[in-house]
């Protein structure tokens, strides 16, 4: 797939996820290559390790306030730390898993790893450049970061 088509797969996944799960549309901004520095992280980050024909990372990073409102929209009453971690990992897992429809069966994904805090180092593969897809939902801002060789 061409670079643009690959990014479109993830954008479509984001739009479908929000429309289906929290039933309020999200918007994706213009994706950009993070050339000079490591992409900025938010409060909670779900990380999927991709292996197989493609290798690298897919990350979904979002502020605590956004994840809390998403949980409310899902009728969840417990907005505690464990459920926030659970949600951010589940979003990363769903967006990565959905991408297999286009990337194919050999796009193998791990169970989610979750980190909290904006300063945690992310083990980006050295030979790749992260593509950042800005996500707007209500007044909140999150990012999907795709870093595949």
């Amino acid at each position, binding site marked *: 797939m061409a670079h643009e088509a690959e990014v479109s797969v993830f954008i479509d996944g984001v739009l479908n996820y929000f429309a289906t799960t929290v039933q309020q549309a999200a918007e994706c901004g213009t994706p950009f290559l993070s050339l000079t520095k490591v992409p900025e992280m938010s409060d909670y980050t779900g990380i999927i390790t991709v292996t197989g024909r493609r290798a690298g990372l897919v990350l979904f990073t979002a502020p605590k306030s956004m994840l809390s409102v998403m949980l409310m929209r899902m009728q969840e009453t417990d907005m505690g730390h464990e459920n926030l971690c659970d949600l951010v990992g*589940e979003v990363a897992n769903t967006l990565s898993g959905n991408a297999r429809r286009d990337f*194919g069966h050999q796009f193998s*994904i791990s169970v989610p790893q979750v980190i909290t805090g904006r300063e945690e180092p992310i083990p980006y593969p050295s030979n790749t450049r992260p593509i950042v897809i800005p996500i707007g939902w209500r007044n909140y801002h999150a990012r999907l970061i795709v870093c595949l060789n």
Partner: protein
Amino acid sequence: MLPEIAPNLGFLGPHRLMVVDDSNIIRRRIERANELGELEFVGAARNGVEALAMHERLHPTIVTMDLTMPEMDGVECVRKLVARDPNILILVISALADKVTAMEAIENGASGFLCKPFTDRQLNDALGKLIRRAES
């Protein structure tokens, strides 16, 4: 091990639902979304190992099964549950959206496949199909 809610099988409806997913949010969501009166939620497991242990005690007739889980993944768990109980009906609910994955789950004994993300209506439709299949 997660708590079981209905150890006395005598109280239960004709169909007993066990939910298997490593996400607490998804487990609770499936439990809440179930609007089918004839389907009684009996328990939830976080992975395949827990699901097999829970199956021995609760004898669910219908199972929703995630695929990507720690300890034991969903495909292996489907295979083992069907080997124990050929009449069990398993709805795989997974983000893995490619056809090969869906076919692999079906070939190992799953009865249906629902892709994440899903709406409550899609879930109830899929579970309703399994119930009608069980009763036909």
